[in-house]
């Protein structure tokens, strides 16, 4: 396991990039006039509230699981809300682990509503709702606070989903989606937003987002009478567990070739690191969730939310490496799916 981030960066900076076969990301974006990459106005605060999770997924870039103890405190959550109040960021995007497993999760949702957040996203793995009695009422809680639910769904078939996310995950996810539908989530024109995230279960890039959404909608409706709003197709970035897999399966070089060949300058214009900040469970600030997992704090005098200063932070260059090709391939990729 290449859990240590410096070892991962060594891999990403070496091999086919060091020997000149493929261009470094920095050089590639310089050719299209995008270097250095700079932030625009902050719109989205993506917060990792802890690595604890009831699942252990093969592709997880967070390395999350039931034995992880890193968890965000209520004090750090309060500091995040201060940023929302001062910057006017309109979206809070909670990730984990399973965000719902943080003991202060419900408090945070309630306080965020008071702070005037327009879009409160929870990246829910769905199975958490059925994992334990204390989570059974989550759908009603989500509804009460108009939480925007975004859930991973690797495929509309049982085999592919369970292979990536663990045995039984597909059936539990289907039940959870049906429960959410039953109270109004994901129904056409319903204000209760339910979106799904698709990421490839292997060493290949996601196909066209609109075509995949059509296939998912048709299959889930016909087989399980499930509705949802949008499907976000997300590219797996070559870091953490997925990087281990690429190397162990002999797919690393081909995957990097595929990412570089699919480079799209139009996607660079809209990469999520330009309007999003990623906050770690312990309050450190990163350009994105992936840089967070690589331990690459923002290149600024301000690196922790207790010292937050919008002006100073906005005057920084975004830290990039070869994993960034994952966000600029094809139609681009972000936590909200394609960007082009």
């Amino acid at each position, binding site marked *: 396991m290449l859990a240590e981030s410096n070892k991962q960066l060594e891999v990403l900076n070496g091999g086919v990039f060091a020997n000149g076969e493929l261009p470094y990301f920095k050089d590639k974006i310089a050719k299209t006039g995008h270097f250095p990459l700079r932030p625009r106005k902050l719109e989205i605060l993506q917060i990792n509230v802890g690595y604890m999770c009831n699942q252990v997924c093969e592709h997880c870039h967070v390395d999350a699981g039931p034995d992880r103890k890193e968890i965000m405190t209520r004090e750090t959550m309060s500091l995040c809300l201060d940023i929302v109040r001062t910057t006017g960021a309109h979206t809070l995007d909670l990730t984990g682990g399973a965000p719902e497993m943080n003991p202060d999760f419900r408090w945070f949702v309630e306080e965020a509503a008071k702070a005037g957040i327009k879009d409160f996203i929870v990246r829910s793995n769905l199975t958490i709702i059925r994992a334990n009695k204390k989570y059974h009422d989550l759908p009603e809680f989500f509804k009460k606070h108009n939480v925007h639910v975004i859930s991973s769904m690797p495929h*509309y078939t049982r085999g592919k989903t369970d292979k990536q996310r663990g045995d039984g995950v597909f059936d539990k996810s289907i039940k959870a989606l049906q429960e959410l539908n039953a109270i109004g989530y994901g129904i056409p024109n319903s204000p209760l937003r339910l979106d799904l995230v698709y990421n490839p279960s292997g060493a290949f*890039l996601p196909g066209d987002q609109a075509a995949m959404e059509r296939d998912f909608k048709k299959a889930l409706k016909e087989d399980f009478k499930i509705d949802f709003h949008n499907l976000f197709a997300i590219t797996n970035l070559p870091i953490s567990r997925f990087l281990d897999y690429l190397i162990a399966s002999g797919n690393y070089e081909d995957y990097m070739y595929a990412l570089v060949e699919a480079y799209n300058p139009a996607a660079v214009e809209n990469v999520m690191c330009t309007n999003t900040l990623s906050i770690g469970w312990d309050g450190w600030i990163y350009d994105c969730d992936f840089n967070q997992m690589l331990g690459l704090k923002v290149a600024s005098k301000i690196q922790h939310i207790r010292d937050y200063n919008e002006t100073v932070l906005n005057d920084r260059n975004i830290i990039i490496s070869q994993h960034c090709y994952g966000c600029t391939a094809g139609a681009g990729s972000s936590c909200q799916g394609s960007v082009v």
Partner: protein
Amino acid sequence: MANSYYDPADLRKFGNITEWSEELGNRFFEYYGKVFEEGALSAREKSLIALAVAHVVKCPYCIDAYTKDGLQRGITKEEMMEAVHAGAAIESGATLVHGVQMMNKYNKLSM
């Protein structure tokens, strides 16, 4: 030179064929790209046809390319294998239907 006729890394170099015949190469790739766009058939359906044909013409590059393409489009392994069977059935049918020619000839020559 490689020691075998097929090198998987050569697939990445496919575009290089334009270097020795630019106009024809470019026209081919333009045509190729157009063929696989959404049309009366979906791009998904065309991907499965391409996979079946790839097996019939026994092109290892095409098999790699359209297995990956199918995965990217969310096509399942069961769908892919059925497509291969469709190709195989036509190919074996094409052999067997010549059995009629053999029967005709046999009968003509026999007393």
